[in-house]
């Protein structure tokens, strides 16, 4: 593994004394609550319903008095109902998967883009990025926050940024080789695929300059880290984020590689019991909840991520004082992350309903073949879908495939299966089989 030249991008903040940090957080939380109470009707109504006024937030603990926000709120208030700033102040829209056919979107003010950029700059610096580096961004560019997020962070640091976006493995490797790229940003599964392709295509690793990589947008494991580090001879770092809060960079790994530091000057993280909503102490496994305290476009109050992890407040050997979150060990809902894209079974259901006219029984089968996630959608044939003509059946199948691609954003293999061939489960119906081994 190459020498580690990790650095701290903003030591004054990242290594801030925790008492000071708490004071900063409280002041910013109070501001944010005032802002949303004044400008976002949904937040005001919910706070009124709970009998909470902005002035009731007198300590960080008082955050528990505030109502939760859910992904369904972003859908119900789509597109601009949660804005706390006038539309004219919004300079960017980013989006991610909703639970139905429509994506959810988040509006960013210039301040919010700045906050997010700073977060990614911290993450990339922790992974060793400086202005002397050449950073290849292999996350998709577009509504998805991965590409633009990494791009902005690398540009902020002053690194030479190569906006490759996703796909085209041959070209990715050629540029990485020819430009002497030193850092790679992409999903860990695609990075492994790149690493394996590098060998298969006959490249000599010694001709590459790669020293580290920032990998995120999907859960991964220590085994995958070992594999990545040996495939490329690099340091592999985890990065986490979500569009609703900012994008990648909400938390990131330092060289200690023992959890991701949360940018606590920009967000307040809580762990709650997903059943009762009660806050849990640090060290307990539960659902991660974020409150943004510097965003002005679409601030999020106690946003439930549905990601399950633990928070660790133990001091870190790297010198950063911000708490660390462990790897995501599961979800409290049925969201899947496939090739870095968030997928909800309900999205597939909406496609089937539209294409097939009825909602047939279906099952999503996710697997990882040659380091690449695969999605197979098995759909039980209904009388309406079946025909004695091959072309009719192929048409239905292709239409489902095309609509999934358009709504969910990833290609799926669609397999039509006989009626009642998909096992029924008692009670809550099981819509997914995930064959990937991602939790240690």
């Amino acid at each position, binding site marked *: 593994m190459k020498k580690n030249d990790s650095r701290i991008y903003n030591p004054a903040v990242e290594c801030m004394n925790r008492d000071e940090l708490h004071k900063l957080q409280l002041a910013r939380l109070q501001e944010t609550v005032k802002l949303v109470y004044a400008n976002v009707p949904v937040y005001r109504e919910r706070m009124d319903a709970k009998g909470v006024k902005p002035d009731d937030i007198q300590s960080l603990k008082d955050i528990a008095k505030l109502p939760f926000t859910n992904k369904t709120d972003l859908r119900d208030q789509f597109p601009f109902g949660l804005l706390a700033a006038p539309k004219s102040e919004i300079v960017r829209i980013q989006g991610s998967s909703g639970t139905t056919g429509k994506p959810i979107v988040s509006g960013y003010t210039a301040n919010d883009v700045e906050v997010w950029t700073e977060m990614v700059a911290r993450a990339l610096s922790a992974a060793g990025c400086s202005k002397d580096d050449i950073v290849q961004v292999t996350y998709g560019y577009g509504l998805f926050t991965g590409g633009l997020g990494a791009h902005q962070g690398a540009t902020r640091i002053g690194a030479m940024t190569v906006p490759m976006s996703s796909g085209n493995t041959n070209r990715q490797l050629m540029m990485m080789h020819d430009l002497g790229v030193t850092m790679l940003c992409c999903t860990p599964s695609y990075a492994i695929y790149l690493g394996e392709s590098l060998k298969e295509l006959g490249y000599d690793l010694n001709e590459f300059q790669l020293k580290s990589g920032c990998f995120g947008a999907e859960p991964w494991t220590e085994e995958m880290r070992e594999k990545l580090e040996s495939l490329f001879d690099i340091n592999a770092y985890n990065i986490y984020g979500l569009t609703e809060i900012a994008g990648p960079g909400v938390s990131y790994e330092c060289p200690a590689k023992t959890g991701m530091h949360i940018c606590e000057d920009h967000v307040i993280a809580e762990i709650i019991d997903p059943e009762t909503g009660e806050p849990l102490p640090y060290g307990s496994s539960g659902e991660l909840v974020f409150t943004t305290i510097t965003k002005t476009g679409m601030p999020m109050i106690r946003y439930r991520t549905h990601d399950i992890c633990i928070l660790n407040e133990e001091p870190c050997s790297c010198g950063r004082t911000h708490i660390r979150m462990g790897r995501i060990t599961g979800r409290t809902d049925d969201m899947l992350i496939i090739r870095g894209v968030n997928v909800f079974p309900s999205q597939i259901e909406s496609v089937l309903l539209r294409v097939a006219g009825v909602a047939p029984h279906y099952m999503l089968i996710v697997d990882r073949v040659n380091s690449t996630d695969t999605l197979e959608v098995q759909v039980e*044939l209904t009388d309406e879908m079946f025909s*004695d*003509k*091959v072309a009719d*059946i192929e048409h239905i199948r292709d239409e489902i495939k095309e609509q999934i691609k358009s709504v969910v954003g990833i290609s799926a293999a669609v*397999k039509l*299966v*006989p*009626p*009642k061939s998909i096992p029924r489960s008692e009670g809550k119906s099981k819509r997914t089989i995930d064959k990937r081994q991602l939790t240690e």
Partner: protein
Amino acid sequence: MFITQISVYLENVRGTLRSLTGILAAAGIDMLGLSVADTTNFGIARIVVREKDSSAAIDALTGAGYMAMKNLVLCAAVPNKPAGLDSVLAVVDEQNLFIEYMYSFNYSIEGNALMILRLTSKDMDNETIVKTLIENGVRLLSQEEVNAL
């Protein structure tokens, strides 16, 4: 002049067709004709049985988990000599009919070979297609004639 055909969806899995024939065998059903349309991912078995057997065949197959349904197709008697089929298809072509699929089966009647035809048209309904074929000299079998095979 339509006859009943049974279409069955087949997954492209080893043993699917054998399982289908096993089910029909157990139900004592005599297949008069069979054709399998195959693609790389799935197949459709098209089966002609006598009318008395058709409901039992559907029940046996759906009971065993198959997607099966009845469709109406045409059964044409085709002169069993050179240009026999050509004379029938000439009518199909001249009348702007589309052949969705066709297959022959192992029975003959009055020295004619038998072909199953599934035809469609942009501007004719199924009844008109039948009428047009007959007017142009195509001999179509009735369900009763098929039952008597």
